[in-house]
């Protein structure tokens, strides 16, 4: 939508409103980041007292000792694999659909059935399959499973983007006898490049929140999803390490937020014809 012309007070009010809303919305995360700088013993006694005592990095050190670094690394690996697999599967299928392949269209409809079946329903048979194939405790398998959740959404988004325009351009490129690399660089990337990045981001985010499969499939290599609940189990809950974990994962989250908002802006500008 083109930028509307507002009178001065309205746009200022809206700007103040959106910043207030954003501030309140992410306040729990910011509070956690601040509280993570408190001494672990003080947090254990009084987890709600966010500001007391001298700041310290003990919580982060304790988290690292508990394996937080490994959990983060494993989560990043799983998410990256999920993003790559989602793109590898969705791009060709979307291209096929845009060329009116009826089989691919049926397949994309079938993919919607993924959302009928909750992952908690599937986790047990999947575990069975994974054990039979000696693929248990595998981050790659978890990444592939996570990709299945984002695949239908990815195909839907790409279909919209890789529609007639891309199809026509591909036909022109074929007539001009451009090579695959030239077609990829001059046609595919400019038309669907932003959507590809957006899908990768979404697949990444969905994968690193994956819980049901991780619970059963992973045992020695934990991800954040199942490692963090270990901090709040038993008689003594390790609040300091949990809050340190929230503060740390906020950093890649901020980076992702930056990527996603830039992509959205680019998409909006593109659609505005800018």
């Amino acid at each position, binding site marked *: 939508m083109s930028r509307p012309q507002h009178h001065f007070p309205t746009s200022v009010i809206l700007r103040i409103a959106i910043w207030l809303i*954003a501030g309140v919305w992410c306040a729990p*995360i910011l509070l956690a980041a601040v509280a993570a700088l408190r001494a672990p013993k003080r947090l254990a006694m009084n987890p709600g007292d966010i500001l007391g005592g001298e700041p310290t990095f003990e919580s982060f050190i304790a988290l690292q000792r508990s394996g937080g670094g490994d959990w983060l690394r494993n989560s990043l690996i799983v998410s990256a694999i999920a993003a790559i697999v989602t793109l590898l599967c969705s791009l060709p299928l979307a291209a096929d659909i845009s060329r009116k392949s009826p089989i691919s269209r049926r397949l994309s409809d079938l993919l919607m059935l993924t959302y009928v079946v909750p992952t908690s329903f599937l986790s047990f048979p999947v575990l069975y399959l994974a054990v039979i194939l000696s693929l248990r405790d595998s981050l790659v398998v978890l990444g592939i499973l996570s990709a299945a959740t984002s695949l239908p959404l990815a195909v839907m988004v790409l279909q919209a983007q890789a529609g007639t325009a891309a199809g026509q351009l591909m036909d022109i490129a074929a007539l001009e006898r451009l090579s695959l690399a030239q077609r990829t660089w001059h046609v595919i990337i400019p038309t669907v490049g932003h959507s590809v990045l957006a899908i990768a981001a979404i697949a990444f985010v969905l994968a690193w*929140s994956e819980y049901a499969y991780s619970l059963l499939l992973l045992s020695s290599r934990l991800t954040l999803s199942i490692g963090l609940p270990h901090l709040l189990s038993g008689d003594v809950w390790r609040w300091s390490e949990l809050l340190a974990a929230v503060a740390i994962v906020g950093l890649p989250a901020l980076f992702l937020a930056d990527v996603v908002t830039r992509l959205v802006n680019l998409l909006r500008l593109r659609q505005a014809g800018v």
Partner: protein
Amino acid sequence: MIVQRRARATWSATSIPAILLFLLTVAVPASVAVLYAFTGKRLGEPVAGFTLTNFSSALREPLFTAALRTSLRFAVVCVVTKLAIGYGLAGILTHAGRSATAALRLLLLPWLIPGSAACLLWVWLLYQPSGVLDHLVRSVLGHPSRDILGSADGAFWSLVAFNVWRETPFWALVFFASRKLVPPQLQEELRLAGTSTWFAERTLVAAYSAPTVLVCSAISFVWTFGEFQSIELITRGGPSNHTQTVASVAMDIGYAAGIDLGTAICMMLLTLPIILPAVLLLFVIAKRRRAALIT
């Protein structure tokens, strides 16, 4: 030069990865799970003969009927709230100018952090005694806060609040991006005609956003109905089973009791009549969009 596009009846083998992914991760496991439901599958034992007793067991289980009501209520309340707030936020973001992008980054944080971290963060906020909320209430009012997670209503609305907090930014982002579908020339015409921004929002923007809203509603409903992680981590289905959803009851019966996997999966299957309409809606909208693009 307009190039005539030929319809191709051939199918490219490059779709094989998608097919394999769907087969191995969804179709085959779902078939196995359905097999468990229609046979007397119990943990540690081979599959027995065809039977429907699992379905009658599921229907007779008092926790199941209560969980079904809770799941439906949870999904409807969450979806309506998320979409209303998300749509409103998208409107504010559209009219807020350059500030929108920076504020959007902050807004997205709850959606972007891992689900477990978000759930446990809320446990920290609501923990009784001495969580953040309790500490705040004590310092302001001088007495402890009510134990929100210890009351049925408090626990339910906490889960709703969490779900809305976590997922609304994503939907706001989707609506914000989709507002670009509105043709600029139509907006310009309305502006020149002297209509207010609010009128444009109510008519033009709403009309063009409707398919996106419907798709998002359907996806959100399915995901929220099958929500498991937040219930497991924040309330564990309590207090006294008041926040048990179908997914959590099924996990409880299938795994915690350690015996009745068939009945657990039956419970999930019995929710299909509720989930299928939402997925069918997705199908229909996706098809119409595809048809609109191709013609």
